[in-house]
Structures are given as structure tokens and as C-alpha cells.
């Protein structure tokens, strides 16, 4: 029996074997598919429907959001903040990442390890760290007292939020840039140098285009994380007018489920659109996450 099967297998091509194994493979996907369907797709559909419902004979949730200067303002502010954070993180992380990937020196791996730890810090902790840095009793307050005779406090404003988002975006960019540098062809740089290109020319014309796909996809992730970061904003104060905080306030303080659902759907749609756009720009090479 075994010999017969063995003969049959050796005759059939490899492609046939894959075909034979495929139905089993699809079954292995079933548990994950069930969980995603029940706890992700179904609730999401519910959220989308709920956002379109009319409450107390008024307008639908989406219409209320799109007609309100306050909600639109918070959406715009969130987008601009996320974009600025993404730009700053790409610049800072790009410089450090290329440096760490290219140079060998004593203590380099320790430096890389230290720089990538904060990747796993939750938003609340990052918010607290910003308070320690720039809060009322923070480091900058003490420094300002020393130097200018006044406390420098900017943790509870958009500036504090910017610092917090930057804090958890930089490690991600550094990791991505370091990985992308490994696959960069160094001979291109040497060729450019030997043709007389200065350092800046090499950076602008060789290194940045080479890293572009990685930068675009990583930038999109940073943007998405900054759009949805609730913990940091929550720690720094619920007065900040960014969309996650607005959703939270609408949901808990006013129990207005339709508007909360509509805001969530719009925030999710914007985030997803940016991720898709980045995918289109960067091609399939960039990894999400």
C-alpha cells in the first residue's frame, strides 16, 4: 500500500501535491476566520450601520459629524498632528537609523537595544513620561526655573502630544530604516562618490530614493498609530481636541452612540485610506506593522 502511494506521488508533479494538500490548509484557517468574522467584521458592520442611524428624529450620525465645525476641526487637527509627527519621526529616525546601520563602533548594539525598547510602551506610559519631562514638576520646568526664572510647561498641550507621539514613533522608524539599509546596494553610493558627488548629493540622490519604499510604508504606520493613539492623549488631559478623545467624550459623557460610531468609522476610514495609499506608493515590498 505504501509503495503504491509512493509511486503515485513520485509520478505526479509537485504542483499536484500542493493541490492535494490545499483543502486541508483551508480548514486550518477556519478558527481564525470564525474569530475575525464574529468579533471584528460583524461589530464593524454594526458600527457602520449605527453611524447612519437617525436619533430622536434628527440627522444621521455621519451628517451630524460632517456638519459640525467642532468634530471636523478635531479631525483636521488630528490629521495635521499625525502628519507632522510622521515627518519629524522619519527625519530623526532616518538620520539615526542610517548612522546605526552603517557605522560600527563600541556600544552600537547596546544603543540599538536602548532605542528600540520604547516600541512596546503603551500610550498611557508614554503620556506619563511626557508629564515627567514637560509637566508642572517636570525636567523642563526645573530647567526653565534655573535658566529663565519661569516654569516651562508644555506637556498638557498639543506640543506635549507631539512629543509623546514622537516618542513611540522614533523606535519604529529606526528599526525599519536599519533593516532597509541592509538591503541597500552600497556600490551605488561608491559609484556616485567616484563620479564626484558630494555627501549631500549622495544622500538625496542615492540613499533617500533607495530607502523610499521603507520610509513610505513605515511613515504610514506611524501616521495610523498617531491617529488612533488614545492612551497618550487621555493621560495628558481630556481637554485636548483630538478625535480619539472626542469619540471617548461623546460616548461616555453624552452617551451619543450614533455620533461616536460615525466618528469612529470616519477616523478608521481616513487611517485605512492612508495605509492603502502608502501601499500603492511603496509597492508590495513594504511590510505593514
Amino acid at each position: 500500500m505504501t509503495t503504491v502511494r509512493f509511486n503515485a506521488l513520485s509520478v505526479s508533479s509537485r504542483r499536484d501535491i500542493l493541490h492535494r494538500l490545499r483543502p486541508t490548509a483551508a480548514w486550518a484557517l477556519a478558527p481564525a476566520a470564525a474569530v475575525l468574522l464574529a468579533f471584528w467584521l460583524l461589530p464593524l458592520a454594526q458600527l457602520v450601520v449605527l453611524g447612519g442611524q437617525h436619533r430622536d428624529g434628527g440627522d444621521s450620525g455621519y451628517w451630524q459629524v460632517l456638519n459640525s465645525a467642532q468634530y471636523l476641526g478635531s479631525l483636521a487637527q488630528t490629521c495635521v498632528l499625525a502628519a507632522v509627527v510622521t515627518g519629524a519621526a522619519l527625519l530623526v529616525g532616518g538620520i539615526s537609523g542610517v548612522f546605526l546601520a552603517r557605522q560600527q563602533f563600541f556600544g552600537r548594539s547596546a544603543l540599538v537595544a536602548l532605542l528600540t525598547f520604547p516600541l512596546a510602551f503603551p500610550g498611557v506610559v508614554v503620556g506619563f513620561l511626557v508629564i515627567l519631562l514637560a509637566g508642572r514638576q517636570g525636567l523642563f520646568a526645573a530647567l526653565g526655573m534655573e535658566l529663565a526664572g519661569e516654569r516651562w510647561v508644555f506637556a498638557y498641550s498639543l506640543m506635549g502630544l507631539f512629543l509623546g507621539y514622537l516618542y513611540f514613533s522614533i523606535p519604529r522608524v529606526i528599526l525599519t530604516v536599519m533593516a532597509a539599509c541592509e538591503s541597500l546596494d552600497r556600490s551605488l553610493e561608491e559609484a556616485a562618490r567616484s563620479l564626484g558627488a558630494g555627501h549631500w548629493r549622495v544622500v538625496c540622490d542615492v540613499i533617500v530614493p533607495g530607502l523610499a519604499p521603507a520610509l513610505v510604508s513605515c511613515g504610514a504606520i506611524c501616521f495610523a498609530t498617531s491617529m488612533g493613539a488614545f492612551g497618550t492623549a487621555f493621560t495628558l488631559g481630556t481637554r485636548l481636541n483630538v478625535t480619539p478623545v472626542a469619540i471617548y467624550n461623546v460616548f461616555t459623557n453624552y452617551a451619543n452612540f450614533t455620533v461616536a460610531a460615525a466618528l469612529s468609522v470616519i477616523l478608521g476610514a481616513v487611517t485605512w485610506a492612508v495605509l492603502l495609499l502608502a501601499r500603492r506608493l511603496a509597492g508590495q515590498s513594504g511590510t505593514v506593522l
Partner: protein
Amino acid sequence: MKRSTLFFAQLVFTLLVCAFMLVPVLLSLLAGLTRNYFVGVSGGLTLDWLVQVWQAYSPTVWLSLQLAVSCAVCVCVIGVPAAYALVRMNNRFSRAFEELMVLPVAMPGLASALALLLTYGQFGELRRSWLFILVGHVLFTLPFLVRPVMAVMQRQQLPTLEEAAASLGAGPIKRFFSVVVPNCRAGILAGVLMVVTLSLGEFNLTWMLHTPMTKTLPVGLADSYASARLEVASAYTLIFLLMIVPLLIALQAISARLSRGERR
């Protein structure tokens, strides 16, 4: 070896970035151990705050550990077969499914939590139990296990090994447990560590899904930041860091080993 000025400029820049990442953490460690933060270290060091935090918040630590371990188990049970299926199928459907799986991570956590809450919040029993939080954590962490496991599976010569096992008469289930799983242990381990780390620190979903009876560590942290004095909040953060940093060190060691394997 002679270094250029550019090298030193970049080094100083990187060290400044490092300072930005580390100084607040050190401040927090210091604040959690000093008797009075406003007086400074000269006021003396103490472990009183840590004891006080442990007395007030230790249930949150245990619940978070319970959640993280259960989450890792659940994600393994559904994630490893899923990764196997995705690698094996490798067609348009599997790529679409992968996309779908990553969506809960890409979406703002608050939106996912709201969706779960508005759909399943009416079932009081589920709403009140910690399993509700577990559902959110599993959704959020699933791709972080599936991705590394898929990467390892793609590198191994799994089809060849499986062919050999099949030709010797091993059925699909036997093949999965005796060929597929042992060959991607490193990927599973890396994924599990990542899942535990993320689950311990998850806040965006958990804040919406928790009840006063099911407070996790990050929820307790947010509470203490809002209401407790700075030293207590710092001591609490210190406990959190003590839990999470060993995991991160292990994770870095494993991913270094994995990438060495890739280059070989």
C-alpha cells in the same frame, strides 16, 4: 581608524535621540524610589511607594498576567494553523485574508473597542467577565504571531518535508503536529513573546472594555496617573517596566537569532 566630523555629528545626534528616549524613563525610576520627588534624591530613597502600590494595585497585575497568558494560548491555537494555511494557499484569497487580519491593528483601537461594545455589550455576563477584554486582545495581537510564524514557514523547506511525511503515510493532522509545528518553534516563540508584551501593555481597547471589577495593569496605571501622587504613579510604572523589560530583552535575543538564521 580616523573618523570624520560627520561621524561625530551623527553620533551626537543619535545620543541626543537616545537621551530623549531614556531620560524620562530614568526620571520615572527615580521618582518611584525617592522619599519625596520635590525634595530630590537628597531626601533619601525608599521602597515604601512600591509596597503601597503593591497593596493597592496587585489585583491588576495578576489580571494582566492572566490575560496575557490566556491571550498567548488563544492566539497560538488559532494563529499557528492560520499561518500554515496562509503560507500553503498563497493565492488571492489568502492575501485578502491576511489583509483582513491586520486591519484590527491598523484601525484605531478605540473604534474596534466601540464596535465590540455596541455589538456584544448587551450580554451582561460576557460584558462583566474578563473574557470580553480577552477577545479584544486576541484580535489585536493575532497578526503579531501569524507574521513571524509565516516568515519562518516560508524559509523552511516545509513542502519537501511534508511530502516526505505524506509519502510515509502521515495524515494531515499528524503532519501538522510532527513536521510543521516543530519546524517553526523559533517563530512561534518570538510571536508568543510579542503577544504577551503587547497584551500586558494594551490600553486603547482595554480602557473601553474594562469594568471596575476587571481592571488591568495599564488601566490601573491610567487611574494612578489621574489621581495618585507622582511617587506612587512612578512606582507603579516601575513595576510595569520590571515586568515588560525582561520580555523585551528575550524578544530582541530571539529576533537576532532568527535574522542570523535568515542570513545563513
